[in-house]
C-alpha cells in the first residue's frame, strides 16, 4: 500500500542526511510505527509520504503510484493527516474543522453534515454538544479526537499520524490509544504512525521501523524486535523490562502445558487466565495468589497449566 524505496533527504546546511537510504513498505490495513529518538528522521519520512517534504533521492509509492507524479494537494486529500499540535483551524467550529476535506472535495452539503456528525460520535464526542464550539473551548484530549475525526473525514485509505497522542496527559493518552485501536478494527486504515515512545510503538504497531540518525536500524513485528533486537541501540531503546514486554505480547496458550483436568496444587478457582490473555496477566495472578502454577482456561473449560518455571525458561530462551 505504501512503499518507500531508498528515500534520502538532506536539509540545506545539514552535516548529515536527515533520512538516509530508507526502504520499507506498509501492508494494507496495517499500523506501521516509525520509532526512534528525536532527530532520527521519522517525521521527515512521514512528511515525504504526503509530499510536505520532497526527497532528494528515492521513490515513494502509494498504491503502486509514484507520489512524485501526483498533484500534492490532490494527493493529500486522499491521505488522512494527524499531528501532535493538532492544528485545528481556530476560526472554524469543530463541525467545520471536521468538514474541511469533504468541502475541498466538494461533497454535497447534506452528505458532509451527516458524515461530520457520524465522525464526531465515532471518536467519542457528542456532536450536538461540541459541534458548534470553537477549538479553544475544548480540552486537549477532545481536540485530539477532533484531529483524528478530521483526518478520517473523507474516508482516506491511508492515515499518517505524527505523535498524535503526544500532547495529552498519560491517562488520556492510554484511553485515546485504546479507542483508536478499537476504531481501527472497524475502519481498517493503512497507517503510518510516528512516535518516540517505544511502549506506544509496541502497543499500537503491527510492524515497527526503528530509526537512528536517519538510518533504518531494524524492521519487524513488535515480538520479533523484542526477541531479536538487531544491536545494542535497539536493545537500549527497548528498555530494561524487555522480558516483561515479551510476556505482554505472548498469549498464555502458547506457553501452557495442555491438560484437561484440574491437577493438585493448582491455585484455586479465582486464579485463572484465559488462553488469549497475555502471560503478563498470568504472572500477575500468580504473584497475587502466591502460587507457582495457574490454570489456563478457554471459556469455562480448563485446557492447560502454566508454571513459573515455564515462563522463566521461555523468557531466557527468547531473549537470550
Amino acid at each position: 500500500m505504501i512503499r518507500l524505496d531508498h528515500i534520502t533527504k538532506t536539509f540545506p546546511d545539514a552535516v548529515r542526511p536527515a533520512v538516509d537510504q530508507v526502504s520499507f513498505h506498509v501492508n494494507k490495513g496495517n499500523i506501521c510505527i516509525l520509532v526512534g529518538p528525536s532527530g532520527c528522521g521519522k517525521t521527515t519520512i512521514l512528511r515525504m509520504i504526503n509530499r510536505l517534504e520532497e526527497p532528494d533521492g528515492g521513490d515513494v509509492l502509494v498504491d503502486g503510484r509514484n507520489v512524485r507524479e501526483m498533484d500534492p494537494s490532490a494527493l493529500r486529500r486522499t491521505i488522512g493527516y494527524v499531528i501532535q499540535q493538532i492544528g485545528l483551524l481556530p476560526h472554524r467550529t469543530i463541525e467545520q474543522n471536521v468538514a474541511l476535506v469533504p468541502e475541498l472535495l466538494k461533497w454535497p452539503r447534506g452528505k458532509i453534515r451527516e458524515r461530520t456528525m457520524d465522525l464526531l460520535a465515532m471518536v467519542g464526542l457528542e456532536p450536538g454538544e461540541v459541534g458548534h464550539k470553537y477549538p479553544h473551548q475544548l480540552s486537549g484530549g477532545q481536540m485530539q479526537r477532533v484531529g483524528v475525526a478530521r483526518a478520517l473525514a473523507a474516508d482516506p485509505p491511508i492515515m499518517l499520524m505524527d505523535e498524535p497522542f503526544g500532547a495529552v496527559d498519560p491517562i488520556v493518552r492510554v484511553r485515546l490509544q485504546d479507542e483508536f485501536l478499537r476504531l481501527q478494527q472497524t475502519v481498517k486504515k493503512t497507517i503510518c504512525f510516528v512516535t518516540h515512545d517505544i511502549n506506544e510503538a509496541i502497543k499500537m504497531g503491527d510492524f515497527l521501523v526503528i530509526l537512528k540518525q536517519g538510518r533504518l536500524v531494524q524492521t519487524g513485528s513488535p515480538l520479533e524486535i523484542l526477541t531479536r533486537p538487531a544491536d545494542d541501540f535497539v536493545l537500549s531503546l527497548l528498555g530494561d523490562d524487555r522480558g516483561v514486554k515479551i510476556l505482554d505480547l505472548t498469549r498464555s496458550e502458547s506457553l501452557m502445558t495442555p491438560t484437561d483436568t484440574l491437577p493438585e496444587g493448582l491455585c484455586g478457582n479465582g486464579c485463572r487466565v484465559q488462553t488469549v490473555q497475555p502471560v503478563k496477566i498470568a504472572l500477575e495472578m500468580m504473584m497475587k495468589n502466591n502460587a507457582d502454577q495457574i490454570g489456563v482456561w478457554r471459556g469455562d473449560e480448563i485446557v492447560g497449566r502454566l508454571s513459573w518455571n515455564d515462563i522463566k525458561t521461555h523468557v531466557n530462551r527468547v531473549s537470550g
Partner: protein
Amino acid sequence: MNFDMNIFMDSLLQRAPGYIPEHFMLVVIPLTIAVLISLPTGILLTRPGYRRHADRVMAFFNAGQTIPPLAIIAIFFPFLGLGYGPAVLALTIYALLPIARNTIAALSAVPDDVREAARGMGMTPGEVLLRVELPLSVPIIISGIKTSAVLTVSTAVLAALVGGKGMGAIIFAGINFFRPELILAGTIYIGLMAVLLERLISLAGWFLTPAHLKGT
C-alpha cells in the same frame, strides 16, 4: 490675538463644512491606493521565495514614512508639478507603511501548526491564504489600515499648501490671517473625521473578523 465668536461660528457652520467632501476624498483616495499596494505586497513578502526580500522592501516603506510629505512633493515637483495629483501621491506613500507592516506581522503570526495542518489536509497554497491565513489576520490588518487612515486625515491638511485643497485651506487661511477661529473650526472637523473614519473601519473590520476572535 482675540477670539471672535461670530467669526468662529461662521467658519464652523458656513465655511468649513464645504471643505469636508474634498478633505474626505484626499483621505479615501490615497488610503485606497495604499491598501491596494500594501496588502498584496505584504502577502507577497510572506510567501516562501519572496520572504528574503521582506527587509529590503520594508526599508523602502519605512523611508516613505520618514520623508516629510512636503519633501515628497518637492522631490516629485519636476515631474508632477503642484496640485491635487502630487498631494495624493505624497499621502499614498505616507500611508503605505502601517498597512504593509501590519499585513506582514499578521500573516507571520498565523501559527505554523495551523498552516501546516491546512496544507496537510490538501489545501492549495491559495486556499491556505484565502481560507486560513487572511481570515485569521483580519484584526491586525484592519488596525494597520486604521493607523494609516488617522495619519492621512491629519497629514492631508498639508495638501492645501501645494494647491491640493481640503480642510487645510481654511486652517492655513487662519494661520496666514492670524484668525484662530478658522484654525479651530478646521481642526474640529479634522478631529471628527479621524474619529469617524476610525469607527467606520472598525465596523467594517468587525464584519470581516472570524467569530472566535470577536469580543476579545
